[in-house]
């Protein structure tokens, strides 16, 4: 027992929800990858790869057959069967927006035997493999059927998976710390690991995740060697680690995040396209990113709504935000639109570090661009509740808020919720945008990557013109580790297989 290797990692947030299907929270998704396995997963080239199962697609593109590999076993010792897979996919399909689209065209989904699952569609759904292999927001994790039968609106209460780590329920303290043990019976694939695909070989005995509410404390703890790994490093604080022996700062996730602003289409003034465009003109990516990140190495001015380094990413029509703030243009547009000086209610969260800066910088820029701005500070929970309010401004409504996404969460028109144009059914802000819906249907129907790309570019142009949302650029968050921790997989999701920890 003495030479058990424990890895202590400080994660970006406390784990509170243990059900990776019910929530989109990143920390819960990360937890999902520890405990559960997935059927298939994209690799670093965004190519779906087999994980628990191989698959075959029929000629007509209507039948998908999945075959589970041998040796798959849940932590309680039961083998993974086709029934488990079906139940898990069905629960996931109720929660995930991509999943919902697939189930809309599903004829049947059944386990034909213990290791085979057949998915039959009523019409072809080209991106099906991309959707079920996606890394975020909700990947379809496979659970035992009895667990997966829990209603999709209720959280599960049993945490048994077939992933490479076992969740230690006794040592779990919600929001504070969670402990995972190596699952000795896990059989990794043979392939080299790449993102969530490939062999998941565990080289440590225990992984402990904790949170530290104070950034500085976490940095000091890593510098002092009290922890092994720090998921997110505040850029400005990097000098603390630079001078600390044994600490390494590096990039793990090459894609990073986007930060965006979302206007409310229901109420003046942002129900007016020209005024939305004025806002776009008033804002400048560089100013905002620099304030958030400081060091230009860790941000990227980028106007591609699907991300600059993704297959569908394209910066068409984006110079208006990438070219720096243009208050004059903004004023002109406001003039033309007949802006009457109604103040814009801009919601500013105070308690989420990664979201504090944007509204403050934006408020300043918008004012310079001729807007009246009412910056309303509140905690993130209040933002979350308020942004769901469709009421007019005077009755608890809002005009603009900012949030962040991981690049893989916005990387195509199906995943990216902000390009949904279905009015009341759309994401907060509720644009009623038939053109974009049309383009999204075309995207689903598209058969080749080239075709998809072409549609994506049109969506990009449309979004820049119509200002469905304001792309404020990409940024990267480095991680830090002790030198003794090595071989961590480069991926948007921090995963703890493959890595090794030497004695320090």
């Amino acid at each position, binding site marked *: 027992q003495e030479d058990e290797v424990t890895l202590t990692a400080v994660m970006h947030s406390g784990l*509170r929800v243990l059900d990776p299907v019910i*929530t989109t929270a990143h920390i819960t998704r990360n937890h999902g990858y520890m405990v559960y396995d997935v059927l298939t997963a994209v690799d670093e080239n965004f190519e779906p790869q087999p994980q628990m199962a191989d698959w075959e697609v029929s000629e007509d593109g209507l039948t998908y057959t999945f075959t589970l590999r041998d040796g798959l076993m849940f932590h309680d010792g039961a083998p993974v069967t086709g029934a488990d897979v079906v139940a898990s996919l069905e629960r996931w399909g109720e929660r995930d*927006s991509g999943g919902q689209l697939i189930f809309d065209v599903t004829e049947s989904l059944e386990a034909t035997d213990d290791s085979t699952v057949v998915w039959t569609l009523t019409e072809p759904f080209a991106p099906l493999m991309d959707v079920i292999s996606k890394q975020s927001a909700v990947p379809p994790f496979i659970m035992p059927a009895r667990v997966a039968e829990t209603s999709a609106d209720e959280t599960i209460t049993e945490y048994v998976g077939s992933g490479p780590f076992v969740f230690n329920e006794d040592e779990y*303290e919600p929001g504070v710390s969670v402990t995972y043990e190596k699952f000795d019976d896990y059989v990794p694939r043979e392939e080299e690991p790449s993102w969530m695909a490939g062999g998941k070989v565990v080289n440590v005995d225990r992984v402990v995740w904790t949170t530290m509410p104070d950034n500085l*404390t976490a940095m000091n*703890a890593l510098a002092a060697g009290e922890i092994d790994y720090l998921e997110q490093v505040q850029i400005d604080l990097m000098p603390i680690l630079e001078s600390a022996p044994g600490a390494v700062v590096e990039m793990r996730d090459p894609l990073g995040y986007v930060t965006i602003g979302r206007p409310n289409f229901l109420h003046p003034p942002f129900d007016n396209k020209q005024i939305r465009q004025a806002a776009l003109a008033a804002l400048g990516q560089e100013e905002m990113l620099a304030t958030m990140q400081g060091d230009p190495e860790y941000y990227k001015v980028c106007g591609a709504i699907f991300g600059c380094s993704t297959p569908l990413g394209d910066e068409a029509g984006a110079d208006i935000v990438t070219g720096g703030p243009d208050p004059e243009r903004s004023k002109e547009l406001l003039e033309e639109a007949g802006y009457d000086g109604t103040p814009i209610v801009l919601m500013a969260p105070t*308690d989420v570090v990664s979201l504090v800066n944007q509204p403050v910088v934006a408020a300043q820029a918008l004012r310079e661009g001729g807007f009246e701005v009412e910056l309303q500070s509140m905690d993130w*929970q209040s933002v979350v509740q308020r942004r769901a309010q469709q009421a007019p401004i005077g009755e608890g409504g809002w005009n603009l808020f900012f949030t962040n996404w991981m690049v893989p969460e916005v990387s195509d028109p199906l995943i990216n919720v902000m390009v949904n144009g279905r009015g009341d059914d759309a994401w907060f802000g509720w644009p009623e945008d038939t053109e974009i819906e049309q383009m999204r249907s075309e995207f689903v129907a598209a058969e080749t990557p080239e075709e998809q790309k072409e549609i994506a570019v049109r969506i990009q142009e449309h979004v820049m013109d119509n200002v469905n949302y304001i792309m404020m650029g990409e940024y990267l968050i480095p991680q830090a580790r002790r030198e003794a921790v090595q071989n961590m997989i480069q991926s948007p999701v921090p995963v703890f297989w493959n890595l090794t920890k030497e004695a320090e």
Partner: protein
Amino acid sequence: MFGYILKRLLATIPVLLIVAIFVFLLLRLTPGDPAAILAGDAATPAQLERIRDRLGLNDPLYIQFFTWFGQMLKGDLGTSLISNTDVVSMVADRLGPTINIAVMTIVISVLLAVPMGVIAAWRHRTWVDFLVMSFSVLGFSVPVFVIGYILIQIFAIELRWVPVQGYASPSDGIGAFFSRAILPSLTLATIYVALIARMTRASMLEVLGEDYVRTARAKGVRENVVLFRHALRNAAVPILTIIGTGFALLISGVVVTESVFNVPGIGRLTVDAILARDYPVIQAMILLTAGIYVLVNLLVDISYSFFDPRIRY
């Protein structure tokens, strides 16, 4: 005595009841929706609505209140809306660190502050008095988190005497516990020391002017005996009182120090719960802290009679 304790315990019931109603209403008026945090960024309105239904958040307020209240009477504080864990066990896990650190803080504070206050009063209007008072006013003037950072910088980073952060329970070894608990305790103690030293001084000044102190001196009693045997015991009641009411300050301080030193205690739990609108947890926590506060002050009141035989219940 027993009758008095019983009476006081009964008297806490209305207090806690008012706290319960107040907090319940306050929380339901506060914007925020636990269903939204549960479901995450991309949830649709229909999904949220269904989750709210499940959590009982769509019931009329009074039904929610009586459901919660009825369960509470049965000792069931419910389950966290967010993490779906039993509130009682959640709180139980977090209580230890806070209580241990609080106790250590009180011990440190009393051991430091009382002699300080006594000496300041004894040497009233001399440089000793000035020094003690300056220190105690200073302890009152610097925000807790700044004190915490300074202590970390000096003792953990520069001197490397103790770890930067974390908590170990005494069962993990006394050394581990002390090395991690000492800085948070000291941080919290600065306010408390200031408070107690100040009150000790004031109370001692008053007592030192009393006739029986003069009597003691007239008996030829040594000065330290005069101070600690004759005067201090008589000065004890206000000091105890301030220890009791200062407990509220301690709870406030705990919230901050637990963040700075990464202690998994109830202060952080409560703040997190408030920010996540995890109603059952907030309700339980505020009731718990209010209960502890009331209880501590009851203990303080009872301890009066230990120091002052005139007080009998």
